[in-house]
C-alpha cells in the first residue's frame, strides 16, 4: 500500500473551498480528515464512497458561501459615462479608429457577401414544392474500372415503373431536341423539351398565363417567360400558333397554352419550350418508345413517401437484367435515385444529367468564399486586439481611477466590451453599406450573375446579430480581460509597463503575416494562371477556322458550292460532330477491356481544316469509302490502349473491327476545365454532315465570316445562322479564368491593406510610446540608422519566423487548392511565393520608414520634458 493512501482525496479540499465559507472551512476539513483516518480498515473504494458521502452532507446552508443577492450590476448613468469616455477616446485616436472600423467593415462586408452567396447557392431549386419526393432515375455503369453515374435511362423504364410500383405517384420522361421555332418572321434555333404531362405537377414552376393541365393536349406548347418575350413581346400569347420545324419535311403547329413565371435565378432545371412527350413521333418517326437499347434524357419519379425509395431501389433488379440483355456494351451495375432537393449538388458527378452542373462548382466556391470571409474577419479582429493592447497604456490612469472609486473587475470588463460592441456595431453598419453598394455589385459584375440579395430577410438580420456579437466579443474579450487585470497600486506607482512585449501581440501579428502571405500567393498564382491558360495550346489550331452548323447534307452541298469560290478559303470540310460543339460517346473493346471514348465523325479534310497535328500514321484518304473501317485516335487513347505502335492494330466497335491508321496529338475540344478524353475519329457518311468548317487565309477571317453569313441568309432565309469563329468556341472560359485573377487580386489587396494597417498601427503606437527613449538616444549621438535598427529589430525576428512558416505553408495550400479547382493549371512555382514574401517585406519597411521620418523631425526638448 502506498503511504499517501492515508491522505484523503485532494479534490475534496478544492471542492469544498470553492463552495464553503472560508471561516468554517478549516474545521470541516479537519473533521473530515480525522474521519478518513478512522476508516483505515475498510477497503479503499468503500472508504472513498463513505468519505464522499460525508463530504456531500456538508452542502447545507450554514456552510455554503452566500450566493450574492441581486445587486444592480451596473447603473444606466455609468453607461452614459462609458459612452462619453469611449467616444472621446476614439476621437482622440483617429488612426486606431480608422484601422479598426475600416478593417472590421471590410471583413464584415465580405462575410455578408459569403452569406448572400451561400443563401443563393442553397436556394437552388428550393422553390419546388415536391423537391423531397421527386427523384431522378440514374444508373451506375462500369467504365474502364470506375463506376460512373449517368442520368440517362432506358426508354421503356418510365412506363414500367409507373405500372409496377404503387408507391410511385407520378412518372415523367424528358427528351430534348434541337429544332427551329417559327412565329411570323421570328425564326430561331431552339431546344424543345418533350415531357409527360406530369412535368408541371412534379416541378412546381408557377405559370403566368394558362394552365398546367394544357400540357396533356398533344397540340399545346408551354413557353418560358424569356421565350414568350422573345417571340411575342410582353403581350399575352395564349392561343397564338407557332410552327416547330423538326427537320427537312417535318413540322407541326402548336398552340401556346401557357407561359411560365420568370424562373428564380437559382435554378438548375428549367425549360424553354414544353410539349407532350408523344410528339416525339412527329419529330422522329423512327422513335421507338419500347427499345431497351435506347435511352431517354431523363426519367423522373415522384413517390408518395420518400421512405419508399429504398424499396423501389431494391426492386430495380429485373429492369437491370432486361437492360443488360438488350445492350451488352452498356452494362448497368445498379440503378439509383437522386432526390431533386440535392440533385444540383451532385450534378457535377452525374453524366448527361438534365440538372445544370454549374451549381456543383458554386458549392465549392461557397466554401472558399466562407473561408475567405473568416480569414479576413480574423485579420481585422487581430488588428483590433493588437491595437487595443498596445494603446491600453494610454488608458491606465482612467482604469486605475475607476477602480479606486469602486469599479469592480467585471465593471471594467463590461466597459471595454461595450465600447467594443459599439465600435463593431458601427463597423457592421458600414460593412452592410459596403456590401450592398460595393462588394456584392462588384462580385456580381465580375462573375456576371445576380444573386438576388435581399436586405429584408430575417435570417440575414439574425446572421448580422451573430456576426456582431461574435466579432465584438472575439476581438474585445482578450483586451478587456487584459486591461481589467491591472493592480491599482501598480498603475499609480507607474510600475506597470506593458503592451510593448506582450507575446499575444506577436503571435497575432505573426499569424496575420502568414495569412497575408497565403492570400498574396493565391492572387499571384491566379493572375499567372490566367495568362498561362490564355497561352496554353488547344492542341489544334483554331485560328483562322470558321464553322457553321447545317441542317442536312443538301444544305451543306449548297453552302459549300457557293463558299468554295471564295479565294480566301484554304480548305472546307464537313462533319457530323465538331470540336467544341458536339461529339458522341462510344464503347471500344480491345483485348477484353472496354474503353469509353469520345467519337467524332469527320471527313477527309477535317484534320487539315482544324489544324490537328498527326504524329504518326496518316489521315483518311480522299477515297473515303476505302477508309470506312479505319479510325484515327489521339495520343491519350493510344496510351490507354497500351499499344507500342498502334498503327495497324484492330479495335472493336459495335462488333465491327476497325483499323487504327493514325495518331493525332492530344487536344482540348472543350475548355480546360474538362480533362482530355480518349478520342477517336471515324469517317462520317455524307448524309450525316451537320457541320461545315473551313480554314481561311490569315487576316481574312472577318471578311470571310461576313460572306458566310450573307451566303447563309440568301440560301436559307428560313433558318437562322448558327456558327462562328473557332477561336470563340470557348471564349468566355478565358474571361472566367481572368475573373478568378481579378477577384483574388482584390482580395489580396484588401489583405495587404489590413495586415499593413495593423502593422502600421502597432509600429506607430510603439514609437509614440518610446519618444523619450529615442530622444535620449539622439541626445547621446544616435543617428537615424541606429534608431531604424532599433525599431526594425523588434520585428525582424517575428517577420522571419512568420515568413519561414508562411512561405512553405502557402506553397502547399495553394498547390492543393489549384489542383482541386482546375483540371489544367500553371505548375506551382517558387516565384509566386518569393514575390509574396518580397511584398510583405516591402510593406514592413515602408511602415517603419514612415515612423523614422517622424522621429527624425521630432523635437528633442518636448520629447525629453517630463509632464
Amino acid at each position, binding site marked *: 500500500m502506498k503511504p499517501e493512501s492515508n491522505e484523503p482525496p485532494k479534490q475534496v479540499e478544492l471542492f469544498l473551498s470553492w463552495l464553503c465559507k472560508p471561516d468554517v472551512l478549516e*474545521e*470541516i476539513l479537519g*473533521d473530515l480528515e480525522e*474521519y478518513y483516518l478512522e476508516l483505515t480498515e475498510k477497503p479503499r473504494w468503500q472508504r472513498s464512497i463513505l468519505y464522499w458521502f460525508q463530504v456531500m452532507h456538508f452542502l447545507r446552508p*450554514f456552510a455554503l458561501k452566500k450566493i450574492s443577492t441581486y445587486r444592480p450590476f451596473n447603473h444606466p448613468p455609468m453607461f452614459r459615462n462609458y459612452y462619453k469616455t469611449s467616444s472621446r477616446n476614439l476621437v482622440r485616436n483617429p488612426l486606431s479608429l480608422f484601422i479598426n472600423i475600416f478593417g472590421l467593415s471590410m471583413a464584415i462586408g465580405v462575410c455578408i457577401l459569403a452569406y448572400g452567396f451561400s443563401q443563393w447557392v442553397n436556394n437552388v431549386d428550393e422553390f419546388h414544392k415536391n423537391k423531397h419526393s421527386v427523384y431522378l432515375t440514374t444508373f451506375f455503369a462500369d467504365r474502364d474500372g470506375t463506376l460512373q453515374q449517368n442520368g440517362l435511362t432506358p426508354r421503356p423504364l418510365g412506363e414500367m415503373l409507373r405500372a409496377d410500383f404503387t408507391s410511385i405517384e407520378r412518372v415523367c420522361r424528358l427528351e430534348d431536341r434541337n429544332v427551329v421555332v417559327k412565329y411570323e418572321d421570328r425564326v430561331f434555333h431552339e431546344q424543345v423539351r418533350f415531357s409527360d404531362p406530369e412535368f408541371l405537377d412534379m416541378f412546381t414552376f408557377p405559370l403566368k398565363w394558362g394552365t398546367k393541365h394544357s400540357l396533356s393536349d398533344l397540340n399545346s406548347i408551354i413557353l418560358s417567360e424569356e421565350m414568350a418575350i422573345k417571340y411575342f413581346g410582353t403581350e399575352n400569347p395564349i392561343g397564338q400558333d407557332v410552327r416547330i420545324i423538326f427537320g427537312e419535311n417535318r413540322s407541326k403547329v402548336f398552340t401556346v397554352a401557357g407561359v411560365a413565371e420568370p424562373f428564380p435565378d437559382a435554378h438548375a432545371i428549367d425549360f424553354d419550350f414544353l410539349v407532350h412527350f408523344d410528339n416525339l413521333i412527329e419529330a422522329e418517326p423512327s422513335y421507338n418508345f419500347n427499345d431497351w437499347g435506347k435511352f431517354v434524357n431523363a426519367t423522373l419519379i415522384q413517390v408518395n413517401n420518400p421512405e419508399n425509395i429504398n424499396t423501389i431501389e431494391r426492386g430495380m433488379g429485373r429492369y437491370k437484367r432486361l437492360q443488360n440483355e438488350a445492350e451488352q456494351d452498356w452494362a448497368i451495375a445498379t440503378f439509383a435515385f437522386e432526390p431533386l432537393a440535392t440533385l444540383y449538388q451532385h450534378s457535377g458527378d452525374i453524366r448527361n444529367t438534365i440538372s445544370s452542373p454549374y451549381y456543383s462548382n458554386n458549392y465549392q466556391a461557397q466554401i472558399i468564399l466562407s473561408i475567405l470571409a473568416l480569414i479576413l474577419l480574423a485579420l481585422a479582429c487581430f488588428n483590433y486586439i493588437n491595437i487595443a493592447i498596445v494603446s491600453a497604456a494610454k488608458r491606465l490612469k482612467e482604469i486605475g481611477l475607476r477602480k479606486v472609486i469602486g469599479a469592480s473587475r467585471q465593471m471594467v470588463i463590461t466597459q471595454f466590451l461595450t465600447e467594443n460592441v459599439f465600435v463593431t456595431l458601427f463597423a457592421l453598419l458600414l460593412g452592410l453599406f459596403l456590401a450592398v453598394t460595393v462588394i456584392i455589385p462588384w462580385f456580381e459584375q465580375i462573375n456576371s450573375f445576380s444573386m438576388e440579395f435581399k436586405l429584408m430577410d430575417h435570417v440575414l438580420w439574425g446572421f448580422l446579430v451573430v456576426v456582431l456579437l461574435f466579432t465584438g466579443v472575439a476581438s474585445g474579450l482578450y483586451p478587456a480581460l487584459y486591461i481589467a487585470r491591472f493592480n491599482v497600486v501598480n498603475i499609480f506607482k507607474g510600475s506597470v509597463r506593458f503592451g510593448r512585449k506582450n507575446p499575444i501581440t506577436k503571435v497575432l501579428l505573426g499569424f496575420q503575416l502568414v495569412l497575408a502571405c497565403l492570400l498574396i500567393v493565391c492572387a499571384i498564382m491566379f493572375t499567372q494562371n490566367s495568362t498561362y491558360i490564355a497561352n496554353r495550346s488547344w492542341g489544334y489550331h483554331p485560328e483562322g477556322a470558321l464553322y457553321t452548323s447545317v441542317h442536312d447534307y443538301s444544305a451543306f452541298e449548297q453552302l459549300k458550292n457557293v463558299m468554295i469560290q471564295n479565294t480566301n478559303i484554304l480548305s472546307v470540310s464537313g462533319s457530323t460532330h465538331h470540336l467544341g460543339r458536339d461529339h458522341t460517346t462510344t464503347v471500344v473493346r480491345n483485348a477484353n477491356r472496354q474503353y469509353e471514348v469520345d467519337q467524332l465523325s469527320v471527313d477527309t479534310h477535317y484534320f487539315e481544316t482544324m489544324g490537328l497535328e498527326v504524329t504518326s500514321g496518316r489521315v483518311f484518304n480522299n477515297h473515303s469509302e476505302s477508309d470506312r473501317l479505319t479510325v484515327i485516335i489521339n495520343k491519350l487513347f493510344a496510351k490507354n490502349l497500351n499499344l507500342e505502335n498502334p498503327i495497324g492494330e484492330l479495335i472493336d466497335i459495335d462488333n465491327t473491327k476497325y483499323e487504327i491508321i493514325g495518331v493525332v496529338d492530344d487536344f482540348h475540344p472543350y475548355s480546360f476545365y474538362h480533362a482530355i478524353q480518349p478520342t477517336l475519329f471515324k469517317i462520317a457518311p455524307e448524309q450525316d454532315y451537320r457541320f461545315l468548317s473551313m480554314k481561311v487565309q490569315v487576316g481574312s477571317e472577318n471578311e470571310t465570316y461576313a460572306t458566310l453569313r450573307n451566303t447563309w441568309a440568301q440560301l436559307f432565309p428560313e433558318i437562322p445562322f448558327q456558327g462562328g469563329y473557332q477561336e470563340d468556341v470557348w471564349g468566355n472560359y478565358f474571361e472566367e479564368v481572368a475573373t478568378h485573377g481579378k477577384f483574388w487580386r482584390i482580395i489580396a489587396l484588401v489583405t495587404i491593406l489590413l495586415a499593413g494597417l495593423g502593422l502600421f498601427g502597432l509600429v506607430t503606437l510603439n514609437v509614440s510610446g518610446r519618444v523619450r527613449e529615442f530622444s535620449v538616444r539622439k541626445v547621446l549621438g544616435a543617428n537615424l540608422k541606429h534608431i531604424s535598427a532599433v525599431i526594425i529589430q523588434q520585428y525582424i525576428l517575428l517577420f522571419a519566423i512568420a515568413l519561414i512558416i508562411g512561405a512553405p505553408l502557402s506553397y502547399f495550400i495553394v498547390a492543393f487548392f489549384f489542383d482541386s479547382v482546375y483540371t489544367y493549371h500553371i505548375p506551382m512555382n517558387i516565384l509566386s511565393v518569393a514575390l509574396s514574401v518580397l511584398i510583405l517585406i516591402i510593406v514592413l519597411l515602408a511602415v517603419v520608414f514612415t515612423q523614422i521620418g517622424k522621429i527624425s523631425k521630432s523635437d528633442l526638448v518636448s520629447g525629453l520634458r517630463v509632464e
Partner: protein
Amino acid sequence: MSKQHLGELEELVLLLIIMLEPEDAYGLEIRRALKEHASRTITIGAVHGTVNRLEKKGLVKSHLGGATDERGGRRKRLFTITAHGKSVLRQSRDVKVNLWQQIPELALSNLRIT
C-alpha cells in the same frame, strides 16, 4: 426571542457538549459520542449544522483550539455551553419531568416502547 425552542437532536448535542467539554467538544467527537450513548448515526455535516444552529441561538459558544500534528495541522472548533444554554436545557428537562409525573401509572404500563 422570548422562548427558545430546543429540538430533540439539539438537546442531545447540547448534553453531549457538557459531557465532553472542555477538551473534546468538537464535531467529530460529538458524532462519535452520539453514536455511543444514543445509538444515533448522523453525518458529520449534520453535527456541524446542529452546533452551528446552537451557537446562533446563543446556547453554546466556540473557539478554535490549538493546532496539532493531527488533522493535517488543522485546528478544531471547540464548543462550551453558555449559561443560557444550561438554563434552556434545565427548562426542557423540567417540562418533560413534569409531564411524566402527570401521566397515571396505569396508562404508562400499557405503553410499549419498542
